[in-house]
């Protein structure tokens, strides 16, 4: 037994499965690129076009600032309304979807609804709403409400499932009804996380509300898309810069709020 040569232990042994996986990934990349018509010529040509496009975007043209401000304000309104409605709807939904509080025959279907809300991209939802209820901010708000429900309700339901049941039992033992159990035993345990999710969703609603206009659902996105179609690239640059500034500002504010809450 001792005579068998033990293989010399390498300090850095080659990881063959990983190497093969990386090789497969490289082969796939080349194959898929050729399938999509993504050749080096095209990329090189695109670089030149990209430089031209950038040249036309500079300097940004802020002449139509009224149009810009109007669009940004509408985006902000959509974001605020969609967040408020989304929070209101997802609060009861997430309690219904929490498996430790509601029976499975309620939690299952509610979870399904939430999963569907989350799986469909908000732009697709926005298109459907635009087709069903017409152009404008209403469609954008409705689409973002769906997206907000998908996000907040899922995470909040998971947060509720992690609570300690001892407090729930204690409040139940006093003879409290369902609403009182929720108000005094469930919500105090998860309120801070709920506020965190809501803040995050407000942030991402603001990002998304600047975009739903591309499909006609109101906000600055419509202005952006129109400018793109008219090849007003200097105005496009102005809009993009103001969107980035708005999002940056929102991120700073929500960061401050989150720090203050802690």
């Amino acid at each position, binding site marked *: 037994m001792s005579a068998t040569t033990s293989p010399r232990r390498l300090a*850095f042994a080659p990881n063959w499965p990983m190497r093969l996986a990386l090789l497969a*990934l490289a082969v*796939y*990349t080349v194959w*898929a*690129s050729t*399938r*999509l*018509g*993504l050749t080096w010529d*095209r*990329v090189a040509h*695109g670089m030149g*076009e*990209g430089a031209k*496009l950038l040249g036309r975007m500079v300097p940004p043209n802020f002449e139509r600032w009224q149009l810009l401000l109007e669009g940004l*304000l*509408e985006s*902000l*309104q*959509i974001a*605020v*309304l969609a967040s*408020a409605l989304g929070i209101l709807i997802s609060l009861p939904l997430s309690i219904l979807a929490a498996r430790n509080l509601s029976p499975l025959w309620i939690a299952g279907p509610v979870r399904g609804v939430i*999963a*569907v809300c989350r*799986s*469909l*991209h908000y*732009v*697709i939802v926005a*298109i*459907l*709403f635009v*087709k*069903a*209820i*017409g152009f*404008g*901010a*209403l469609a954008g*708000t*409705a689409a973002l409400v769906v997206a907000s429900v998908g996000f907040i309700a899922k995470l909040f339901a998971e947060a509720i499932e992690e609570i300690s049941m001892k407090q729930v039992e204690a409040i139940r033992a006093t003879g409290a009804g369902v609403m009182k159990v929720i108000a005094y035993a469930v919500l105090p345990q998860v309120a801070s996380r709920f506020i965190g999710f809501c803040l995050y969703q407000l942030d991402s609603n603001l*990002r*998304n509300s*600047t*975009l739903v206009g*591309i*499909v006609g659902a*109101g906000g600055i996105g419509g202005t*952006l*898309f129109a400018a*793109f179609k008219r090849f007003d*690239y200097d105005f496009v640059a102005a809009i*993009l810069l103001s*969107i*980035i500034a708005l*999002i*940056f500002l929102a991120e700073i504010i929500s960061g401050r709020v989150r720090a203050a809450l802690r």
Partner: protein
Amino acid sequence: MNSMTHDPVAPLRREWQRHTPAQRISRWMVWLVCVAAVVWAVRSIDIIPEFLADAPEQMADMLVRMWPPDIAHYYPAVHNAMIETLHIATLGTVFCFVLAIPLALMAARNVCTIKPLNVLAQLGLVASRSVNSLVWALLFVAIFGPGAAAGVFAIAFRSVGFVGKLLAEALEETNPGPREALRAAGAPWGAELLKGVWPQVQPAFWGIALFRWDINVRESAVLGLVGAGGIGLVLDDAINFFQWERVATVLLAILVVVLLAEIVVTRIRARLI
């Protein structure tokens, strides 16, 4: 005399309040700001009341038209577009690392100790994250022309910010011990990164890549709406021709693929980490 004024149970009679007056005022202010924002938005938003009134009816009408979904339409048109969408998502995720890895190395303060380069990399990552994937797609459609190439680049450029940020954070959390040991043994810079840093960030790296791929599958489904290839193009056509049964098929296909992608990612993550 003193015992007359001093009441031993006075502290028990005191009314307890959870918050100090200042706290109460600030809580009220927060609520006031929230309500004021909502009221402002409701009052000034440009919603046409007639649209709002018949919205439920119109939604129901659209859903009725979608039923039953035109499953026969799935093959080959929707199927091929779906495969293209998956290629766009995967290629976009692969290509994003070409930019994300150098930027993450530059942004991590323990790997790159040159302060201006850190800031520059952070700025690049923030810019990539702030521009939405549809806007990136618009830009790349203007550059490459309509087609999947624009979609791949849009996904890649959008992902750089997200992946780069998370990767930089993972790099900053690494233990400096192995690197110092390798440096002390005389290893060159590349070997130091490959053998001292990479093994530590590898789980995080694959986790981030899978997570982003999952997001990219969702995002690449809509890129076609602005002409950047994939299933969105088929969806847009079906909607514009009011072929609601086909729209339903496409939506179902997207739903199934997104859910499958999520399940696959969760499985692989559970095995890797």
